[in-house]
């Protein structure tokens, strides 16, 4: 057995490309540049898509808007407002040009500037969505990980079943039903919280935020629990156990960061479903956000307003997804690598 032990030797190939920090910065720069580029492309696609909204309407939108009894003057006016009196290409150029200058046209119903309307309401919607997202992430992470850790051995069948059933039911309660029941219980019967509007500060935010959050939270909590199981079956968690870490340390250091990564990866989709729910919930609570404005506009066939709101919500979603990507890259450095 001639197992010769060589001298400690200098490794040539392994400390790659100098100081790690500089490499990290360069990778970050490239990563951010890539994400920014794709953000711009997608924003442009959205603009074009909303532009074609009005052009996709079967028949003549102006005629449909005004009904059969319209005067020719009114008809021409609506066509002009919608920009239908010009060739399609110049319409598109005008529209894109307008969007870039934050000019989203004028409402057909109220003569208000669409940009102004959105400006007034965007903040409220973001407040509701933000509060909802925070609630979703918090409850889903805490609930999912806790139940996951408690049921990972497969021993607590009761807890396992009741978690599955309750999240299944909560995940199937339509937002508007939940919103109405919340109003009934906490607004009318108990009288603790305001029934509608956004004038009572934080107090008026509670019920809408809960109504928005419950369904996505239930869905995400189930995913988080499964991801917790998944994380527990990972080899590096076994390594953690071989270090004799207390369970709480093991969960906090090795399980939660990985579960959080998966939860955030799902975050974009969850956020989408949350924004959809917010549109409905805003209507129930008469919350002065973009959702109520959108529903009103759709019922009135107010196309410039619909275009504007869909565009702004779409860009908000894409922006938030980009932010999620950045957070994920910070949590898991492998994502910074080229081609990922």
């Amino acid at each position, binding site marked *: 057995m001639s*197992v010769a*032990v060589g001298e400690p030797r200098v490794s040539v190939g392994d400390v790659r490309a100098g100081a790690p920090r500089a490499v990290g910065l360069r990778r970050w720069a490239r990563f951010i540049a890539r994400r920014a580029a794709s953000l711009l492309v997608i924003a442009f696609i959205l603009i074009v898509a909303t532009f074609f909204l009005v052009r996709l309407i079967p028949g003549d939108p102006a005629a449909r808007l005004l009904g059969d009894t319209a005067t020719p003057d009114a008809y021409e006016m609506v066509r002009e407002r919608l920009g239908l009196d010009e060739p399609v290409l110049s319409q598109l150029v005008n529209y894109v040009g307008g969007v870039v200058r934050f000019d989203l046209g004028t409402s057909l119903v109220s003569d208000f500037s669409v940009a102004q309307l959105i400006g007034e309401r965007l903040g409220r919607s973001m407040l509701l969505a933000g509060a909802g997202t925070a609630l979703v992430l918090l409850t889903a992470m805490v609930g999912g990980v806790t139940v996951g850790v408690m049921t990972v051995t497969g021993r607590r069948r009761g807890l396992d079943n009741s978690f599955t059933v309750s999240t299944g*039911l909560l995940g199937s309660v*339509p937002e508007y039903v939940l919103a109405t029941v919340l109003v009934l219980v906490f607004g009318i019967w108990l009288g603790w919280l305001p029934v509608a509007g956004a004038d009572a500060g934080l107090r008026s935010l509670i019920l809408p935020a809960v109504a928005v959050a419950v369904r996505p939270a239930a869905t995400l909590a189930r995913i988080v629990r499964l991801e917790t199981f998944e994380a527990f079956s990972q080899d590096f968690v076994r390594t953690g156990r*071989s270090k004799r870490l*207390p369970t709480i340390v093991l969960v906090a250091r*090795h399980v939660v960061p990985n579960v959080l990564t998966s939860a955030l990866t799902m975050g974009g989709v969850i956020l989408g479903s949350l924004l959809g729910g917010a549109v409905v919930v805003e209507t129930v609570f008469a919350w002065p956000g973009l959702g109520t404005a959108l529903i009103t506009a759709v*019922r009135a066939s107010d196309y410039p307003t619909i275009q504007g709101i869909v565009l702004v919500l779409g860009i908000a979603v894409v922006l938030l997804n980009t932010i999620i990507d950045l957070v994920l890259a910070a949590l898991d450095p*492998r994502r910074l690598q080229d081609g990922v």
Partner: protein
Amino acid sequence: MRNLLGTFRSVPSIAALIVLVLILFAAIFGEPLFGDAARNPDVLNAELGPSLAQPFGTDQLGRDVFARTVVSAGPTLLRALLSGLGAAAVGTVLGVAISLQRGRPRLQSLAQRVLETSLAFPALLTAIFVTAVLGSSGSAATIGIGLALIPGLARLAQSMSASIVERDFVRAAEQLGLRRPKILFREVVPNLAETMVTAAASATALALIAVSALSFLQLGVQAPDFDWGTVLAAGLSRIYSAPWAALGPAAFITVTGASIAYLADAIGRRANRRAVIAATGPSARPEAVTGDDDIVLDVRGLSVSFATPMGEVTPVRGVDLTVRRGEIVGIVGESGSGKSVTSMAIAELLPPNARVRADRWTMVAPAEGEPADAASRRRWMAQRIGVVFQDAMTSLNPAMRVGRQISESARVHRGLGRSEAQALAVERLGEVRVAAPELRVGQFPHEFSGGMRQRVVIATGMINHPDLLIADEPTTALDVTVQDEVLALLRHLNRQDGSSIVFISHDLAVVSELCDRVLVMYGGTIVEELPADQLAEPQHPYTRALLAASPTLDTVQHLAAIPGNPPDPAMYPPGCPFAPRCPHVSDRCAEPVSLVSVGTGHRVACVLAADDRADSSDVEVPA
């Protein structure tokens, strides 16, 4: 089919199934039974409260709300199904089509990006957008929601089929020169079908809620038609005076949606169901003994059982293992021999459904005496035993810098501060001969090569300079040159610190180069124990056969294959586990056989070896 039925055995599954059957019943027979009550106004009986005849009361026009709910089950479910299934069909085709564009990576990645973006776009918003274009109607809502569901399903189909088309059996089919459509329908689609059916069911549950939401917003079905959404919306407008008119239909939507989603989930989970783990009895644990400081570990009669759905399985049956200070003990065996379970039992890293028993189990005691509480026991174990695993890549946390991972145990158990711990990590990384350790502690595992990563894992196991290092196939995943260096490193660490090593391997040659003493395991027992330098002349028929079956660099003659397969731990034969494959098998092999000494430090569990000894003692006695 029996598998499928097994899915529906839990209480929630049965409940969900019953709900769906009832709803289906309502959808079919609702119209003939309750059609009149649902449609004909009766203003004299408007806004009645709930009664036996009308459990949800009546609406503003005096129509029975329960009847309206039951009657609208059909159209509502139909729309949800059309959206869900339609989206699943389109999504599957789209997803598979994208994954087939392997030759055009740019097109493929563009399509993926578009899918991911539209996935993030709120589904309800897409649906509202479509109703704005097509006008508010039930069919516009159905189309809108279907469109909104497509990206998610397409994405699923794309990632699933992309992983299937990369599998070797698809390659094999391509190599047979089969046509593309044939490969698609014979090889890809059958493996995709189950997932997509499940996803279609989930999508239907989502569509049910979304269709109702659009009706609620008055963007869906228009009067005089009605579905669950409009019935519910009518009820909600007067929920404060007559809650049942709203809560009744709401319960229908919720319970139906939840039932569909639950069953879809249950079918989906069937494929990768976790084993139902029954509670097991108390496991044995090592006792700390002071005294013989030369013995690091001494276990007698170690058995490990697992509770599984098929009953109790005992992959380790009565193993004796003694490790002296500074000794390297090899445990060699094939898959299913119980070598890894033995090592993990010693490391106390078995899952909770394992039950460990031992006649005697002692480890060298710490200076401060026997640990009393759980925390000090953990500290004790952390300083007694270090572990090195096979797959260095997955054994390290991908999102944590290696320095922190190496020193984590020392920080937790020895209370080191951040900088002390870092310094210790640098020291250990230097000890396993990683160059520039002070730079490398700040890197992540993926920035290391395979061999360097395994050194990091060894450094992690060695952090507290444990009495015993358990190395479970630490070189199996490595190239032969790297393996050679890792073996040299382990030998070096053993000599330098006097740490004992239990080294698990399937490779006789590796074990013979590194170890002092070797245990050969087969079928959950030790069949032979011998000094490593005698491995060239083993006594047990299994060890001999294994040796003859192992190719070497001098192999030019035929390899002697061992007939049959290694035994399944779930059904070990009662006697010698090797008997079914053994060329020397006789009737006596059905009886349990124990290790008998055949030379210095050489013991064999075989009736033939026992004969030899008996013969020689027979000869000796008269002399």
